[in-house]
């Protein structure tokens, strides 16, 4: 009876990801290899030979990499600067947890009104008599990366705070009493302890930015395509075969990045 209940619970919990996550994605993968009822790799050849699709893959990787590379040092320095001051830390935590529950699409609309063509910043600049080339900047690749950085910075900061909270204060005190301060202390004592959390944060930020669609919906202006936006566009255009293929490519990139990171993480873990 005891065992019976456990397996009932297990079946109940396990069947849901299989029904709603694994088998749909499996079906999408299978479908991407079929066109008109025959097994074929036609879709993939089309993907690899078309400049448009390759361009969106390239855009996705470019935007995501730059965003992650910029977010990591900014987030790290904000956490390092504020972690010892309880009051400030509380405010920073509150501020950064706001975007976690707000729509990134709404956020981008607000950005248009601040930094866009007729936005606040441009008006201030024009009062000062400056002609800043900011007008079209927001809709370019740079602007999209900027919006991504703003929106996903909190996603990096919040978990990083908790890995800093796990740093052993005794080790820090010992280091200080032995005359290690400032950057030296950070590099030799604290950094090794937070490295795992830091790398996990980088991976999660990368995956979140890579897989989101809202920023590009708001700022892409129908010109800049990323992989997710291309999938949406193909689906809207009834190109289901291509949509399936793009989905598989996107999953493949996600998996590849995760596996590479797992290897790096294991190395950094075993060093510790």
């Amino acid at each position, binding site marked *: 009876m005891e065992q019976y209940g*456990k397996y009932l*619970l*297990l079946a109940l*919990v*396990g069947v849901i*990801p*299989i029904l*709603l*996550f*694994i088998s*749909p*994605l499996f*079906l*999408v993968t299978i479908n991407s290899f079929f066109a008109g009822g025959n097994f074929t790799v036609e879709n993939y050849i089309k993907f690899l030979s078309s400049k448009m699709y390759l361009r969106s893959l390239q855009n996705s990787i470019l935007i995501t990499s730059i965003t992650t590379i910029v977010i990591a040092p900014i987030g790290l320095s*904000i956490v390092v*600067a*504020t972690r010892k001051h309880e009051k*400030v830390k509380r*405010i*920073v935590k509150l*501020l*950064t947890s*706001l*975007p*976690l*529950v*707000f*729509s*990134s*699409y*709404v*956020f981008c*609309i*607000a950005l248009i*009104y*601040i930094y866009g063509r*007729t936005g*606040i910043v441009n*008006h201030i600049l024009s*009062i000062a008599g400056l002609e800043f080339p900011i007008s079209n900047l927001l809709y370019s690749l740079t602007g999209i990366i900027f919006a991504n950085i*703003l929106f996903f910075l*909190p996603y990096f900061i919040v978990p990083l705070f908790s890995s800093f909270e796990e740093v052993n204060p005794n080790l820090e005190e010992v280091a200080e009493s032995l005359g290690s301060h400032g950057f030296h202390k950070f590099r030799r004592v604290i950094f090794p302890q937070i490295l795992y959390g830091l790398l996990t944060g980088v991976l999660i930020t990368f*995956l*979140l930015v*890579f*897989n*989101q*669609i*809202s920023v590009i*919906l708001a700022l892409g202006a129908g010109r800049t395509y990323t*992989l*997710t936006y291309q*999938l*949406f566009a193909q*689906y809207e255009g009834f190109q289901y075969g291509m*949509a*399936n293929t793009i*989905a598989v490519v996107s*999953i493949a990139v*996600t998996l590849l990045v995760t596996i590479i990171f797992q290897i790096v993480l294991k190395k950094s873990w075993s060093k510790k």
Partner: protein
Amino acid sequence: MREKIILMLVLLFLGVLIILPLCVVFLLSIVPRWSSVFPTSFSFEWWLAILKPKFTKVILNTLLVTAVSTLITVGYAIIASYLFAFYDFRGKEILSSLILSPTYVAGVVLALGLLTMYPLIRNTFWILMLGHFVVISPIVFRCVLSSMIKIPNNLIEASYSLGSSKANTFWRIVLPLSKQGILSGTVLSIGTNISELSVSLLLYGAGWATIPIQIYLERGWGILGIAGVLSTILILITLTTVFCVDYLGGKKP
């Protein structure tokens, strides 16, 4: 002194970057035309426009999807966390990564999968709800599990040895002790449900647009005032739930 300046700069930086866009969203909803640094006139014309049945239906849709999906998500998260916190079984790691991984797959990909697998419920409320469930259940599961795993095992054993049944122990010991995690999971679920766009973008059918979808559509037509009003409503709903749950969580039974 130098430290204080650095702290002020950090706060200013975050404040400008994060708070400013939120204020602008609210201003958008009460400014008829915005063509200088500060808005020159205010009116509630957009707020009155929102009372049209088209928009009230969108708001009701969002509330309905959020309520149903939150209920199911939190229920599932509690059951799954109970299993993970108090039972050992083979393949535990695999199952937990299975439950958690939808967070790291693009929303449109998940939606495409659901549409391929369940074409019969296309354009209905149910597929929209399933989509929301798939994206949000990992977040809530992580939240509930982290609080349930902290319950000391000897409390559970004490309850059993005093003759309490499994169901009774679950009801009287496990649930009250993991209340904090369940409540914050509920807040997260409501917040993400309301602002969810990437999955619903493919799944919403005729008559089932939610607030974020409507904002997307309105913006496509070049009307930003309505988008401002809807965004403000979205933010207000989220903030209200955060405070309500915070209040409920703070009250001692």
